[in-house]
């Protein structure tokens, strides 16, 4: 069978970086071809070349056996190629129908006036093909992330794409929404659409993928059918070395209690009670929107609690701002580090010292030398990969950005650290490092709370896991008794009598 897409010997040179070196990639009609690799491996560059947004230096692209040349995204679209980026390209204020047909609006005859009834009809039929019932007249900004993604896919379908590339489509989806997305992907597959699927979550690859290609450092490493691969070998191809295990495990010495919540209520949260010990890694599982981040924000003083008590090191506390919580020794590594963690216009040094300028200043004046020394110290101990302390954080990779935020909280001498989705969008190799760091922090007697949607990760590193559902704590599972099934039961509102909190 002739592949619908063939990319041969693709090379892309950026100033100073060889982003892609002689990469081959083929896609058949009706298959899901997973593209894997760490950040910076070249996946995005390959997609940009396919989309026509970036010109290649050498190599050729064939569609149905015929060589094509892309000079702009419009050329690529003409060949029925659709790309769904991680950050959606939707206009939030426009309606669903207007977004789906943006740039190809049906008109009333040959007039410039938009034929709205026709527009809604086309949009509806595209959504129905996906088995979705999103109203076409509501503004996109009123939709959930999962629904927006469906709109993106509908947009591609309305253009009758034959090749659809999806960059990290699952990053913001809950388990249920992911199921739904997979149903949609299978439907498109059955209609002969070739799908390129990029994801960091290996479980998804095994579930939805037919074939896979691994890139590393801009080179093609391996292509095979998904059936021939297993987790360990996949990770090996991606990082270029064998990782003995995905999660480092150390025996931790559990110390005295550091944090206790009693019947805390606020926002969607009701009756939250739990405690965390020094030297313990305490996990929070649950679907997106179950209230896990809300608990973190209340402990950190970013949101107000309405009722209940919080005890820290045995004393009742009432943090009314993040500053209060920081002064007590609480640190929060937020979920979206780019939006809520880092100041992108600032460099590594400035981001590390930001929460504790007091310790690098004499009075109101900052001592640059001490500040630089501190930044260097944490940068070295966390192995932050940066050419210098003066590098802007926007030029760092996701994993290194996370380490910068972590360095900030280590420098404030936190006694309790809350990690909200600590490894989201981070490479496998760096993930392992982050787990090691978390372990070491606990070993030093710091209380650690980890909120994560990556269940294997929670099970791999936590001593206890609390499960949330619709603002309630539905259970706390000990390391010995935790299984994915139990967590999922509790996370969807089911009960396991024996483990009820």
């Amino acid at each position, binding site marked *: 069978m002739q592949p619908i897409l063939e990319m041969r010997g693709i090379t892309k040179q950026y100033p100073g970086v060889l982003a892609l070196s002689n990469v081959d990639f083929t896609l058949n009609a009706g298959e899901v071809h997973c593209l894997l690799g760490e950040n910076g491996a070249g996946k995005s560059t390959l997609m940009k070349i396919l989309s026509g947004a970036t010109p290649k230096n050498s190599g050729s692209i064939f569609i149905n056996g015929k060589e094509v040349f892309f000079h702009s995204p419009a050329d690529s679209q003409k060949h029925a190629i659709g790309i769904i980026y991680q950050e959606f390209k939707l206009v939030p204020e426009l309606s669903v129908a207007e977004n789906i047909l943006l740039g190809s609006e049906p008109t009333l005859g040959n007039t410039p006036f938009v034929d709205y009834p026709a527009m809604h009809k086309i949009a509806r039929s595209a959504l129905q093909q996906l088995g979705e019932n999103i109203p076409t007249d509501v503004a996109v900004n009123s939709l959930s992330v999962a629904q927006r993604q469906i709109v993106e896919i509908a947009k591609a379908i309305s253009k009758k794409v034959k090749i659809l590339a999806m960059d990290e489509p699952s990053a913001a989806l809950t388990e249920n929404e992911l199921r739904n997305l997979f149903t949609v992907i299978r439907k498109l597959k059955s209609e002969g659409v070739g799908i390129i699927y990029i994801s960091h979550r290996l479980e998804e690859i095994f579930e939805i993928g037919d074939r896979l290609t691994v890139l590393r450092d801009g080179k093609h490493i391996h292509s095979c059918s998904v059936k021939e691969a297993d987790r360990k070998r996949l990770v090996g191809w991606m990082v270029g070395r064998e990782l003995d295990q995905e999660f480092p495990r150390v025996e931790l010495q559990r110390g005295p209690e550091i944090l206790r919540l009693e019947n805390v209520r606020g926002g969607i949260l009701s009756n939250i009670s739990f405690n965390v010990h020094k030297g313990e890694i305490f996990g929070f599982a649950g679907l997106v929107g179950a209230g896990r981040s809300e608990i973190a924000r209340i402990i950190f003083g970013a949101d107000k609690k309405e009722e209940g008590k919080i005890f820290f090191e045995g004393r009742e506390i009432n943090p009314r*701002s*993040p500053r209060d919580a920081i002064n007590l020794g609480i640190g929060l590594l937020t979920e979206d580090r780019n939006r809520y963690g880092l100041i992108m216009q600032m460099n590594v040094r400035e981001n590390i010292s930001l929460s504790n*300028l007091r310790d690098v200043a004499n009075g109101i004046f900052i001592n640059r030398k001490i500040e630089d020394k501190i930044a260097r110290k944490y940068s070295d101990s966390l192995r932050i990969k940066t050419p210098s302390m003066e590098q802007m954080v926007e030029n760092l990779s996701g994993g290194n950005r996370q380490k910068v935020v972590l360095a900030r909280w280590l420098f404030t001498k936190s006694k309790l650290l809350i990690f909200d989705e600590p490894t989201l969008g981070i490479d496998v190799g760096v993930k392992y490092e982050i787990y090691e760091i978390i372990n070491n922090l606990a070993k030093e007697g710091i209380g650690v709370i980890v909120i994560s949607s990556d269940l294997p990760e929670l099970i791999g590193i936590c001593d206890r896991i609390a499960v949330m559902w619709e603002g309630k704590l539905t259970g706390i599972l000990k390391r010995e008794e935790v299984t994915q099934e139990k967590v999922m039961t509790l996370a969807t509102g089911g009960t396991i009598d024996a483990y009820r909190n």
Partner: protein
Amino acid sequence: MRTGTESKKLKSIIGEFGIIIALLLEIILFSSLSPFFFTTDNLLNVTLQTSITAIIAAGMTFVILTAGIDLSVGAMVAFSGVIATSLLKLNLPFSLSFPLAILAGVAVGALSGAFAGLFVTRFNITPFIVTLALMTIWRGSAYIYTDGRPIWGLPEAFGILGSGRLFGIPVPTIVMVIVYVIAYVLLTRTKFGRYVYAVGGNKEAARLAGINTNKVILLVYVISGSLAAISGVILASRMNSGQPNAGLMYEMDVIAAVVVGGTSLFGGRGSIIGTFLGAMLIGILRNGLNLLNVGSYVQMVVLGIVILLAVLLDQMRIK
């Protein structure tokens, strides 16, 4: 390929030092066109003429760095001027009324800034609207307070603030230099300065890093209001009168100086040195065109074109 990277390098050099290059070109141009331009007297004159807006622009830089804007500065120039001069008309010995006038003028500016900061932080109203309202409130108040007539007949000694010289250097120029040195130290060497950049770069991230963002925002408006008021008192001294229509449209010149100096209206990026150079660029342009007898209508058009070109240069630097 080689020429590609070289042209990129050239581009970035032009961008990095764009404003300095533009300033030098301007000086060379006017020096060659007018024999009166490059003289000590005229250059001092430029700093004197520019000092009023430059002092306000220093405060505006703080505000714009936090992604805010202060439109009330021009009106504040008038209001603080009439408040200060009216106090000089009281029957008090000059040694008492002079410091009182300056203090009262500046206090009005600081209060107005605190008021603006409060509305922006507590009631979450956009700075544009809050300061637009304050602009008309203070302008109107200046007219009401003076009945629409200038305050004349001030003690002659009051003139030293605006027209006096120290070692041959105009007093407003000296004030301007002091203001810029302090602003530079504040922004680059202190915790407060760091917080200003952090709040402008990402307000929520700054809050979650433990910064009292409301306090920082309030303070930048107090700084802006105070500096506008200082300029207002100096201007009144130079004109030896309190004019309710003083400082009309100054906010535009001031914002232009800040933006030409490379500070981003979106916050978090920019520098006080840039603002100083921006103010000088505009001041020299005005001065040079005057020397060449270019009419004020044409000057406006030229100024607009220069602002566009300067911002275009800055875009190159960011890319």
